[in-house]
């Protein structure tokens, strides 16, 4: 193993309380490390990340004239910066530091203390042998573009946009649908206060539209993102509405004039419970108040043989049938993803008969049915226009189920209670809630449940087995029979009802995986966006400068979504107001004397950071563009490329350290 006599290494091993010390013999590792080459000092300590732990490094560095620091503790993804800062405070270049992960990579995953200790010693040896070859580097400071991109115009995106714009920053709000508002716009009342969703949401929607700091880009999607924290370049594709947005005033004269006298296409906003025309506005308070044409159903786009009565009815000449998707480029410093969720597809739980029996509804359909501005004007009637006299609400549809989604969707118990209340109010029907467990943790939530218990709504504790039209007596004839085990009385019950409401759960949006790829972030196993830390960094991602809020991170109700949007906005503002970001100096550079000019590296670089200098016949890396993946380094035949922090010699010495004593 090569030796560097000038290196004076201080080694520290952390007990992390019992987290490490229980599975790794820290004293023995410390004693072992003390005997390794270049190690001047070796200590073990209860909590290295604590203030006294860091102070210790400071003092030792001075007394023992240390110039390299190695800390064996948790994952570098958690505390590398903490210890780099401590190293810097001790007057040592922060990159003369190496961290050894003996918690996530050893003590937490092994069961044999002896072998875990052996592993820890190997890892420590590798780090000490590596740190000797570290170089002094400086972090590069780059300014942060103060503009912010927010993707998703549901309640989370709206809240975050207003928070950030109110702080005086410029916000681009990109929404894939023709209007902002998201799912909240479809709801009737909100639990537990029963205030009307539209009444509290629509003012915020128009505030977004009117805010001078917010550029609303509806019916648009982010196509590509490049750059890095503080300096992102974003391509947004604006889908054609076939209406010039600036000209439309939302008079709806075109809708009346459409050649289709009757609306005959499924209305997405009303969950298909009503019809719309090819030229339409999703709902009266849609923001922006701009109509659009659905080119899949419009006669003009299908046959080219339409008199275009809609365009003729428009006295502002807002129609443009030749509109094409337009790509717009934005430059922003931070990005907030508020892309939301999708409701569980009830057809995936075929035992509940959705799609098979017309009177089985999803909760979202019922939200529209009880809504005064819904397809029936708030009159709750079945598909045959009769009023239901008995209604069964089935909780946990698609949630807490091995076969579908294992997680609890968090909102269904509460919205089922809300719907029970509203349906009772609208129809005076007998209402049966079938639940597995009632989950009402939240301010005023348990009280709301109590209220419902006193309203004469029935609660049956048990998972529903099936919904069918199998009647075994006169009483059940013509009804939907819900069969469930009532676990409180220990019997299987058959409850005949007129209407079944399926409380569908929350799952990741169907485009979550695409979004994740565009923004280079990760998803957790179930497909929601992965936060940087489940407790301490719930709105940050592993990609600096990209934050997440709302149900795209996991099932969440409105208050939690708004709170998280606030948190994400605060994080973005903190980043912007600090003015600059420090970048890891892990970029690569080429030693011109060694470069043979073969240009193998040039095609390997996904960022086109490498160019060929014809005059010198050597390649050159633009370090401002380089992101530090190291792919070119591994490919360079003449060993001319070096990646800072991951130099060949550093990695090789790590390998030797692991394998050679």
């Amino acid at each position, binding site marked *: 193993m090569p030796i560097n006599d000038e290196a004076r290494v201080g080694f520290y091993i952390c007990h992390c309380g019992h987290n490490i010390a229980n599975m790794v013999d820290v004293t023995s590792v410390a004693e072992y490390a003390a005997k390794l080459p270049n190690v001047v000092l070796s200590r073990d300590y209860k909590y290295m990340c604590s203030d006294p732990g860091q102070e210790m490094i400071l003092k030792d560095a001075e007394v023992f004239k240390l110039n390299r620091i190695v800390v064996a503790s948790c994952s570098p993804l958690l505390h590398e910066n903490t210890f780099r800062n401590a190293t810097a405070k001790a007057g040592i270049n922060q990159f003369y530091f190496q961290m050894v992960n003996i918690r996530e990579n050893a003590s937490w995953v092994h069961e044999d203390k002896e072998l875990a200790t052996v592993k820890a010693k190997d890892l420590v040896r590798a780090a000490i042998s590596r740190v000797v070859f570290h170089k002094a580097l400086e972090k590069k400071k780059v300014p942060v573009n103060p503009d912010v991109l927010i993707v998703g115009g549901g309640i989370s995106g709206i809240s975050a946009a207003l928070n950030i714009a109110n702080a005086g920053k410029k916000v681009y709000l990109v929404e894939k649908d023709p209007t902002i508002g998201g799912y909240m716009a479809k709801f009737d009342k909100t639990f537990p206060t029963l205030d009307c969703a539209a009444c509290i949401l629509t003012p915020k929607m128009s505030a977004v539209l009117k805010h001078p700091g917010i550029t609303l880009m509806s019916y648009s999607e982010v196509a590509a993102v490049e750059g890095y924290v503080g300096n992102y370049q974003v391509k947004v594709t604006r889908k054609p509405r076939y209406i010039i947005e600036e000209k439309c005033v939302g008079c709806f004269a075109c809708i009346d004039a459409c050649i289709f006298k009757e609306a005959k296409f499924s209305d997405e906003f009303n969950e298909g419970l009503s019809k719309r025309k090819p030229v339409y506005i999703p709902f009266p308070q849609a923001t922006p108040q701009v109509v659009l044409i659905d080119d899949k159903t419009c006669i003009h786009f299908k046959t080219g043989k339409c008199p275009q009565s809609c365009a003729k009815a428009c006295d502002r000449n807002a129609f443009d049938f030749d509109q094409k998707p337009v790509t717009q480029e934005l430059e922003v410093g931070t990005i907030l993803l508020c892309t939301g969720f999708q409701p569980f597809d009830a057809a995936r739980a*075929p*035992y509940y008969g959705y799609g*098979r029996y017309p009177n089985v509804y999803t909760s979202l359909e019922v939200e529209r049915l009880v809504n005064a501005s819904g397809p029936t004007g708030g009159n709750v009637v079945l598909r045959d226009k009769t009023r239901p006299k008995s209604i069964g609400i089935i909780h946990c549809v698609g949630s807490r189920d091995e076969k579908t989604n294992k997680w609890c969707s968090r909102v269904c118990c509460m919205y089922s209670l809300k719907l029970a209340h509203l349906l009772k109010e609208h129809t005076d029907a007998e209402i049966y809630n079938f639940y597995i467990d009632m989950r009402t943790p939240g301010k005023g939530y348990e009280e709301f449940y109590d209220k419902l218990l006193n309203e004469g709504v029935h609660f049956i504790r048990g998972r529903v087995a099936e919904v*069918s*039209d*199998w009647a*075994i007596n006169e009483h059940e004839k013509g009804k939907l029979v819900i069969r469930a085990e009532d676990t409180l009385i220990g019997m299987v019950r058959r409850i005949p009802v007129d209407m079944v409401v399926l409380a569908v759960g929350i799952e990741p949006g169907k485009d979550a995986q695409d979004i994740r790829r565009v923004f280079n972030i990760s998803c957790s196993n179930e497909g929601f966006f992965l936060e940087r830390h489940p407790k301490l960094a719930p709105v940050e991602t592993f990609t600096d400068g990209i934050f997440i809020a709302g149900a795209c991170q996991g099932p969440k109700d409105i208050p939690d979504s708004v709170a998280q949007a606030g948190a994400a906005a605060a994080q973005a503002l903190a980043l912007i107001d600090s003015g600059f970001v420090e970048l890891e100096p892990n970029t690569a550079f080429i030693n011109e004397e060694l470069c043979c000019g073969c240009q193998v590296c040039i095609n390997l670089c996904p960022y086109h950071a490498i160019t060929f200098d014809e005059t010198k016949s050597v390649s050159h890396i633009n370090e401002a563009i380089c992101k530090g993946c190291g792919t070119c380094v591994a490919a360079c035949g003449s060993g001319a490329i070096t990646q800072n922090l991951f130099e060949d010699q550093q990695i090789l010495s790590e390998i030797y350290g692991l394998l050679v004593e």
Partner: protein
Amino acid sequence: MKYLYYPGCSLKSSGKLYEISLLAVLKRLGVEVEELENWNCCGATNYMSINESYAIEITARNLAIAERMVGIEMIVPCAACFMGFLKTQKYMESDPVTREKVNDLLNKAGLSYTGKVKIRHPLDVLVNHLGTDALAKTAEMPLKGIKVASYYGCQLIRPYATFDDQWNPHTMDDIARAMGATPVDWPLKSRCCSGSMTSTMTGIGLRMNYVILKEAKSRGADVIITACPLCQFNLECFQGKISRKLKEDVRIPVMYFTQLMGLAMGIPAKQLGLKQMLSPSLVLT
């Protein structure tokens, strides 16, 4: 088009009419079958409930023999055998311990099984391979106006089969429709017929059959068709007794779907075994 054919014990005894009619129909459709040589019981009822691993092991023997016939898929008509085969395959595929143990035993008998045999139910072959259009062309005497309740029983579709919708199976309906008949929609398609309970716990067994017969009748069905020998046996043989006991007429013809197909194809009733039925199925001819 040629398939291996595993009849299983039932189709050689109580379910003989299933075999007769199935082979007649397949012949008419130009589907060649070759009976698996030296086959043994699939282990369904007795072994499966007393010692599951014995059942798996003897089914694996059948699979091992079938695997020698490279490239051929095997038709398994009996619902219990069909499920047994799929279960064995699933266990051997997903559980290394079972796989090793079973293969050890097979090796002792000079056999081995690597998982290559494809098990298919006749419904799967007819609907997904031949297609209902091809079937419809063979219906020389379409069963116009006849209402059919398709009954799959509890073993055929769940939990392992993938050729049909597990909650609302439709392949038998598709066939009935191709034969010119009208399928009735009913919710008890895959409810249990009580299996052997008609002999062990007669009261419960009869009750479960009653529920099925009554619902099919009340939905206006003229005939129940099935793909399981035990279901056919239970529903057909006990309907008289049930009707007498409960003083309610729940009698209705119960036949194999292949017999119904044979009728539509103009195959003589005798060749379909219809003359040996107990329920008044001849009314259909």
